């Protein structure tokens, strides 16, 4: 048996029915059924049923929708690849796509980088680690909407929290939400504020599972501090970082909540994400077909990015 420790929380209770020899042979007494066959499918079926209805069917349906046009209530008709031609020629589409890509480029490196930095700080031998961690994790308890509503309040031009603090340094009030050049950064900053602590805790958990003897061995060779971080901690965290980068990519390319609530996509679509534009096309312009085509396009963008990241960032770590 490979069991080396005893579970202290949940002790599995196994009925002792007493396996007699005849029972083991499959004779009278408890029947010993062979596995394989229907068992696995029973375990799978609840999930598979829901998955099929609410994920697979819509997936195929969207592909079909993208080839149609017309208002959804009065019936739609097929028009082939015309929606795709339309979206390629639509400058607002490219603006929205650019915005989503900018959000990804701003949020992913900064958020994950800050997360690594904070985790590195917390991993040192410091006191009050738990208190720091608790204060840092608070933004994670806000939903993106709650955070956006709060920051709508805090970013007000007249007497808002941020401008109040800047005023202490003699900086004039800035119109955070209404200045086209700033809005992308403001939305990205709120999202980073929300997410970086979460990444920090994730990386901290990973760092704490790195055995101390690796650092001790390196210290003998004079590798300490930041060099040790770069040569031991980071490479060993690579799988976790890769996971974080891929999940963050998938998520930020579809970002919707913060730009929608905080800056409402404005001014003049300067901060509108692609998901926001798709929502507008589908439900305000009543053009489900075009919205579906844009969604398929976004799916392809995400697919390409995820594959690229997995190819370039996945390397084996040998010690």
């Amino acid at each position: 048996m490979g069991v080396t420790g005893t579970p202290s929380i949940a002790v599995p209770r196994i009925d002792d029915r007493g396996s007699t020899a005849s029972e083991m042979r499959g004779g009278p007494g408890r029947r010993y059924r062979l596995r394989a066959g229907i068992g696995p499918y029973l375990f799978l079926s609840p999930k598979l049923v829901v998955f099929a209805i609410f994920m697979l069917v819509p997936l195929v349906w969207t592909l079909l929708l993208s080839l149609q046009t017309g208002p959804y209530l009065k019936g739609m008709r097929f028009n082939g690849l015309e929606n795709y031609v339309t979206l390629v020629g639509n400058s607002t589409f490219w603006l929205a796509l650019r915005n989503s890509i900018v959000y990804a480029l701003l949020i992913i490196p900064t958020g994950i980088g800050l997360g690594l930095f904070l985790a590195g700080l917390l991993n040192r031998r410091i006191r009050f680690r738990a208190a720091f961690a608790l204060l840092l994790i608070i933004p994670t308890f806000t939903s993106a909407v709650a955070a956006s509503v709060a920051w709508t309040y805090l970013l007000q031009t007249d007497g808002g929290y941020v401008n109040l603090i800047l005023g202490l340094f003699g900086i004039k009030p800035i119109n955070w939400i209404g200045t086209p050049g700033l809005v992308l950064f403001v939305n990205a900053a709120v999202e980073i504020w929300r997410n970086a602590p979460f990444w920090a805790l994730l990386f901290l958990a990973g760092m704490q599972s790195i055995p101390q003897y690796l650092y001790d061995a390196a210290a003998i060779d004079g590798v300490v501090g930041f060099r040790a971080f770069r040569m031991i901690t980071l490479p060993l965290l690579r799988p976790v970082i890769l996971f974080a980068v891929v999940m963050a990519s998938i998520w930020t390319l579809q970002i919707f909540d913060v730009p929608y609530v905080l800056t409402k996509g404005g001014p003049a679509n300067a901060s509108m994400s692609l998901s926001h534009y798709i929502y507008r096309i589908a439900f305000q312009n009543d053009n489900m077909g075009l919205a579906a085509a844009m969604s398929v396009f976004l799916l392809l963008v995400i697919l390409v990015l995820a594959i690229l990241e997995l190819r370039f960032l996945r390397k084996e770590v040998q010690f």
Partner: protein
Amino acid sequence: MATIATPTPASAPGYSRRRTVAVAKDAATYAALIIACFITFSPILFVLATSLTNTYSKVTDLSALLEPTFDNYVAALFETSIGRWAVNSLIVSVVVTAVVLIIDSLAGYAFARRKFRGREPLFMLLIATLMVPATVTFLPLFLLSNSLGLINTLPALILPALAYAVGVFLMRQFIETIPSELEDAARIDGLSDLAIFARIILPLSIPGLATLGIFTFMTTWSAFLWPIIITSSDAARTLPAGLATLPGQYNTNWGLVCAGTLLSMIPLMIVFLVFQRYLMAGILGGRAGKG
């Protein structure tokens, strides 16, 4: 980060310089952490102060913390729709989390421990759907809900959230780490599949279930795009969908809005803190060592 196994004796050359550097590093660490905590915590503190004052005005200071009034919270819960939205969010999040924990762990067990035809391709399909953006499924789901008459209802909020594959992935990874000898022993003793799952696998999966539970609750609670697509009245709105309607063009009651925002954070905090304990307990004390 790196520690030196044996402390340098005070008489060693360069000792005082090394000590100064070490002290400076520690000071810098604490300073950086304090600044970071200020950035994460002080906005919320400010929101809290505003929620404790009766104000439509935008300018508040922290003095409100010294003489708080809870009128905004009373109003939020009992006089506005915030209470209704919170109840909806609670129902949806709890139901989704409970169901997901069950069906995902069942499926995760099947993928981890049972061989069946098409296991790998099916798993790949599930993982692939992680990359599908939300709007791809939301558009047809809207049309489907429309034809089933489920617009603006709670089931429409609950059902689509059950289809995400993240949980199956998590549970499979987790269950794979449970030593199979335990199941073999149980099988020899004649336990049925379901009994093995319920009595052996589930108790040992508590850290994995806790992780999945926190994650599912938090993402369901914070969901915004789908609720605003599918709900159109206050009676059915979830908290995020409702909160987004609060800040108006002019004359927003910021005290009330801040109270609502903070109220929306409380369930997440509670769930996180409660499940964290199971997470830690499971990891630290709950499992047999690996074979």
